[in-house]
Structure formats: C-alpha cells, structure tokens
C-alpha cells in the first residue's frame, strides 16, 4: 500500500485518536482569560473507547472527569487529568446528553439526562442506577412520555432536582429529591430550546436558576419559585449550558449562526456582572454605548460545535463537542 494512501486511510479509521503533543502557536481568548488550545490532551483510542457526539463533562472530587456520549458501546467515559481513559460504562443510554454531578452528604452521584429514554437517571459514579425521574404526567403540561426530552439537570442545595426539557416542550420541571413533582415553569412561550440549566448562587442573598434559551441566544434567570427575573442577551451565542464557577459563568457556544451544523462554535466566559470578558475562538467582546453586547462570531476555528465546558481548579477548560468528527474533548490551557 502506498504510504500516502495508508496515512489517509489510517487518519479516517482512527478519528478520535489523539496522540502526541502539538504546539498551537496562537492564544485564543481575551483579557485575563487567554488560552492555548490543546487538541491532543486525550490519549484515548477510538478503537477501544468509541464516541459519537460528546455531550457533557463533570469532575468528581477525586479529579476524575466523566463524559456522556451517545455511543451505546460506552455512554460514560472516565478520564484522568492527563487525558488517559481510565474507565467506561453504560450501554443503555441511547440519548445520553446532560450530565450533572452532585455531592450528597459526601457521596457523589451522577444525573444523566437521556432524551431518547425520556428520563433522568441518577447513578453512582460506577454506573449503578439509584433512581429515575419520569415525565410529569400531572398538571396538563405533557400528554405522553415521548413529549418529554430532557437535556439537562441542576440540583438545588436541598437536593431538589430541576430538569430542563430542551428537546421537548422547553419546560423546566422541578422535582423534590424523591421525584415528586413540585413545579413546572418556563415553557415554549418563555424558552426556545431550553438546553441547559445551572444553579447560580453567586448572589448568596438571591440564589436563582440560570436557564439557556439557546435558539434566542439568551440566558434567562428564574427565581426559586420559577418566576422570570432577568434576561441576558448574548447575540451570536447559541449557548449550550451555563457552568457557574466561582464568580464567573462559562459555557460552550454550539454555533454563532445558523444552520445548526455551521461549525462556528466557540467558548464564552461571563464575569460576575454577566458581561462577556472572554470568548476563546470568537471576536473581541465589545459593548455599545447602550450596554448591549455586539454580536459575537467565530474568528478562530478552534472548535466546530462545542457542547459543554468543564473548568478545573487550575483554570483549564475541557471542551466536549457535538457533530465534530467524533473527536475527544479538547483542553484550553490558561496562559
């Protein structure tokens, strides 16, 4: 076989295989949040640990990184911080999408949002199923299980579980920790593609829920009763889910313009006032005289369709991607 043909075929056959370190000359990001992109952080092999879309990332107390993929050969992959895949489980989550980790009195649990199973499944870190959260049959919001397509969860300090139905009817469904329905808010009149949700406790006196209205390029804030209290408009940012870390909010922007497979994604960071301070892979963030953000757009093709971010204690950002050639997560390394 000719060497060039062999290289091409090997490259095609091993999409997701990331080997060796590559120095990327340019930094991306802005202000105090500039990064070098490491596309080869992961040392895994797609032949052993195949991925399809890489959806979401969380980190356990011990520093393990858990990721959802909708490849049913291994829906959950576990990485160490050096990018080695140290474990995998899950063959029964065809729509494995949202992933939240919650520390429950010292024990850690995962909440997997599966839009094809129309459920949220609570598991141990080893994959043992503890509980499922079902579609809200009461209240007249849903007529069938199939209409409920959850994409994300967030856990309240008291253990209540909020589920964003991002691929269904755009409601946020509030359960207590036992799975009893407490409230349903949001919905198609208020949210357009309620893809993500996070508990925002940066204002200790006024904790709230930050919910993505992705098709509108907005984050919408709801108080704990489900009342809409703030809209953060981020034009050009089709936001996946907010990740509150310290005083900042980080998120993956799937695309900056339609169509949905435009490969125009980037990462975004808000400060405590919810102003964009850095957009790695996008234009310099600027606000006009009226305080409105100038539309964001991709400038560096660091990513195609970033779907989630995970920020560790060092400030490294791990980025998983949807519909991006089955690549493992990249890492942004602060400079």
């Amino acid at each position, binding site marked *: 076989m000719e060497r060039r043909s*062999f*290289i091409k075929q*090997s*490259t095609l056959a*091993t999409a997701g*295989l990331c*080997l*060796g370190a*590559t*120095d*990327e*000359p*340019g*930094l*991306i990001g802005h202000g105090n949040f500039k990064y070098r*992109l490491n*596309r*080869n952080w992961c040392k895994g*092999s797609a032949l052993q640990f195949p991925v399809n879309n890489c959806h979401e990332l969380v980190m356990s107390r011990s520093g393990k990184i858990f990721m959802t993929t909708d490849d049913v050969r291994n829906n959950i992959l576990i990485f160490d911080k050096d990018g080695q895949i140290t474990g995998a489980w899950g063959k029964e989550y065809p729509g494995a999408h949202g992933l939240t980790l919650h520390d429950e009195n010292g024990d850690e649990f995962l909440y997997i949002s599966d839009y094809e199973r129309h459920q949220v499944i609570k598991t141990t870190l080893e994959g043992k199923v503890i509980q499922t959260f079902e579609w809200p049959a009461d209240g007249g919001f849903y007529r069938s299980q199939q209409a409920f397509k959850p994409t994300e969860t967030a856990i309240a300090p008291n253990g209540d579980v909020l589920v964003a139905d991002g691929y269904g009817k755009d409601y946020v469904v509030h359960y207590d920790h036992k799975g009893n329905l407490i409230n349903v808010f949001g919905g198609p009149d208020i949210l357009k593609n309620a893809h993500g949700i996070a508990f925002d406790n940066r204002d200790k006196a006024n904790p709230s829920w930050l919910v993505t209205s992705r098709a509108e390029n907005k984050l919408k804030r709801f108080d704990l009763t489900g009342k809409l209290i703030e809209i953060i408009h981020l034009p050009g940012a089709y936001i996946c889910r907010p990740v509150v870390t310290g005083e900042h909010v980080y998120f993956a922007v799937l695309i900056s*313009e*339609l*169509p949905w*497979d*435009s490969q*125009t994604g980037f990462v975004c960071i808000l400060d405590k006032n919810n102003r964009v301070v850095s957009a790695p892979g996008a*234009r*310099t963030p*600027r606000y006009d005289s009226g305080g409105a953000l100038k539309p964001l*757009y*991709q*400038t*560096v*093709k*660091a990513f195609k369709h970033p779907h989630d971010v995970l920020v560790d204690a060092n400030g490294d950002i791990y980025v998983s991607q949807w519909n991006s050639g089955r690549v493992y997560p990249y890492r942004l390394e602060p400079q």
Partner: protein
Amino acid sequence: MVKSFFGIITLLLSVQLSAQGIPLAQPRFDCKGVFFQTETEVGLEFDMDGAKVFYTINGSKPKLYKRPFKINKTSRLYAFASHPDFGRGDTASLTLQKVKLKPVSLNLKTNPNPEYKAMGANSLIDFEAGGNDLHDGKWVGFLSDSVVLEAVFPEKTPLNTVTVSVLNNPGAWVLPMRKISVYTAVEEGGNWLAAGSWMPEVGRGASSQIRWFPEVQVKRRVTRVKLVIDSFGPLPSGHPGAGNPAWLFLDEILFN
C-alpha cells in the same frame, strides 16, 4: 502486534498533526444592498487583535481593508483574514448584483409553501437578500415540481438578462433548480416566445456555493416575461432524504 500497530499510527499521525495549526474563520461582509440599482457600500469585519483583512474585487490583487468601499457594478468579492500566529484564514465570498430594471409587477402563478411565503412575489423584487434563517421573511420557498412567475414591464422594455438568486443548502434539503426557461411577449395579450434557458453546467450536482445566480440571456424588447423554473426533483441517492422532493428557495429575480 496490537502495540506495534498503535505505535505506527502514533508516529504517522504525530508527523501529520504537528504540521497543522488552527485556521482563522472567514471575515464577515457587511453589505445592506447585495442587490442594488446604482451603487452599494461594502464593509468587512473581523474583530481580532493583530489580524488584518484583505479583499479582492473581480480577481484584483488583494488589498488591505481599511474602511468600507463602494461598488457600482455586478462584482464578485473575496476576503480573508491573516494573523501572525494563525496564518491566513478561510476565504469569504460575496456576489453583488446590479439590477437595472424593476418590473411594474411580478405575479407568482405557483403558490409557495405556506411556511415560507414571505411577502410573496414582492419578496422577489424588493432588493432584499435572504439570510441564514429561512424564516427571515426574505426567502420564498417552494415544494412543487415547477414554479411559474410572470413579470410585467413598460411596453417594449429592452431586456438583456434574467438572473435568479437561489439557495443551495443540501443539508437542509434545499437545492437549486434543474432548469429555467424564459419566455417573452412583446405586448399585452401577445403570444409567448421562447427566449432562452439555463441548466446547471455540471450535470445535476450542486456545487459548494451557498447562493447561485443562474442567468438567462434574453436580448429582446419585452412587455411581459414568464419564467418557468423546474425544481431539482427527488433528492439524489446518498442524501439522507433520498427520494423526497428537494425544496426550492428563491430570494430575488433580477432583470437587467
């Protein structure tokens, strides 16, 4: 055996990957009047510290972009960004169409799909280009075998060409037409005479360009013009929607 196999892959891919950087995205054209009658103004945007933007007009040498510039004839523009740390980026292109004539009226003989009717025939002669969102009210979408339009002009108007602005987006099941046939009548109530037609140059496959401008030569004096646009038909084999009819989306009919 497995270890040595992975070892070979490691060596070959690291050689390949080490030569790759991160490309820059395309700069963004800012032009309100893609379709214009006398002149239009074009700006370029690429807000990144240290980057420069270059552009060409109809194959000219690349010029460094400093400020918006005016265009007064049909032109094809290209632009790219460049940065010392990232090299040269992807090339953006924009076609600006000068339109000399506007019909007295344009009538759609074929109903558009109700979801994409925009302002009907008026959307096709309003000098407004459709954007990325097919629901922006500027695209008129059809799901029919053919689309027929009739335009009326002042008596015996000299008409050189008819150009159709059409969308090419195979991923959205939208493909350009198979054929455009143009007929003219020199007077009200007169017989239609075939004036010319257009078919894609390379079989029925779609190129990578997002917007096409198929043009038909007319070179006649006209009072009425009829366009018969044959849709692409069933999506081809290999397409996720193979066998289903392709959509036809138009945003402007240009008469010169």
